[in-house]
């Protein structure tokens, strides 16, 4: 199992993500710099971490989505390599058009940083197979721009195709239809605002996030 974490200037959850990946796979991920043009040979799982890539200049994730390594990430995603984008990573994936929609400023304008209950909507994906459909899990959020937006036709389509992975059980940021995580049409790219890598140890207050990594990485092992 060869995993990779993409590191942008301003990423700040890259090491947390690396800890989560190493804990599950037993092997440290490759930390891949945004200026690189290729992923290590044989990379079979890619994570885009949280943070404030490029200082959120222009729009959250906008600059990172145009960085050289994203072409390699998009190519890998097209080949079916699993890609997980968390928080800023989710913003990058929407800006790169690997996922539909956009993430706007929270409706309440506040930075929201707390544990939130999530409802698992799709338990069939490679990322969510360790959860039961409809199960409520607890994962922390920490974001300012997590207000998911897509036009009504897109929302109807992704809901109809089972591509909403998680929904907020409570009001958090004004997201359309309370969407917290979205899959691409092939099911191998997941973007989510909550941070599963911050819920992998009982000392974190919960291990619901660990199950996502176990599912995603166990399937491939």
């Amino acid at each position: 199992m060869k995993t990779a974490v993409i590191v942008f200037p301003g990423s700040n959850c890259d090491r947390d993500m690396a800890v989560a990946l190493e804990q599950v796979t037993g092997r440290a991920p490759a930390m891949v710099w945004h200026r690189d043009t290729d992923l290590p040979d044989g990379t079979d799982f890619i994570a885009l971490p949280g943070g404030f890539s490029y200082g959120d200049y222009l729009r959250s994730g906008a600059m990172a989505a145009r960085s050289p390594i994203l072409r390699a990430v998009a190519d890998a995603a097209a080949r079916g390599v699993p890609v997980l984008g968390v928080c800023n990573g989710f913003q990058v994936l929407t800006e790169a058009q690997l996922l539909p929609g956009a993430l706007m400023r929270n409706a309440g304008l506040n930075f929201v940083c707390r544990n939130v209950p999530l409802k698992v909507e799709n338990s069939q994906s490679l990322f969510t197979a360790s959860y039961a459909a409809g199960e409520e899990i607890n994962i922390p959020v920490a974001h300012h721009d997590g207000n998911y937006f897509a036009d009504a036709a897109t929302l109807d389509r992704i809901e109809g195709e089972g591509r909403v992975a998680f929904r907020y059980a409570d009001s958090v940021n004004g997201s359309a239809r309370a969407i917290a995580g979205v899959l691409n049409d092939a099911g191998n790219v997941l973007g989510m605002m909550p941070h599963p890598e911050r819920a992998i140890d009982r000392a974190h207050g919960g291990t619901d996030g660990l199950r996502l990594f176990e599912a995603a990485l166990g399937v491939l092992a």
Partner: protein
Amino acid sequence: MKVNVYVTLKPGVLDPQGKAIHHALEGLGFGGVADVRAGRFIELDVADGTSDADLDAMCAKLLANTVIENYRIERP
């Protein structure tokens, strides 16, 4: 050559920042403001003869996120 680009939220996209500005204006006693929508102004200094198509591509590929934003290019 200076080119001005105006990036604005599409109609129907909620604008929490515009709403906050609106409330602040009301708090300052400015009545009669029906609505506020915030956008972004970008000034480009480009080579003379830069084509409309290139300017449009700059906006569509980077300066605006066309999922939520419209853009308007103003040439001198």
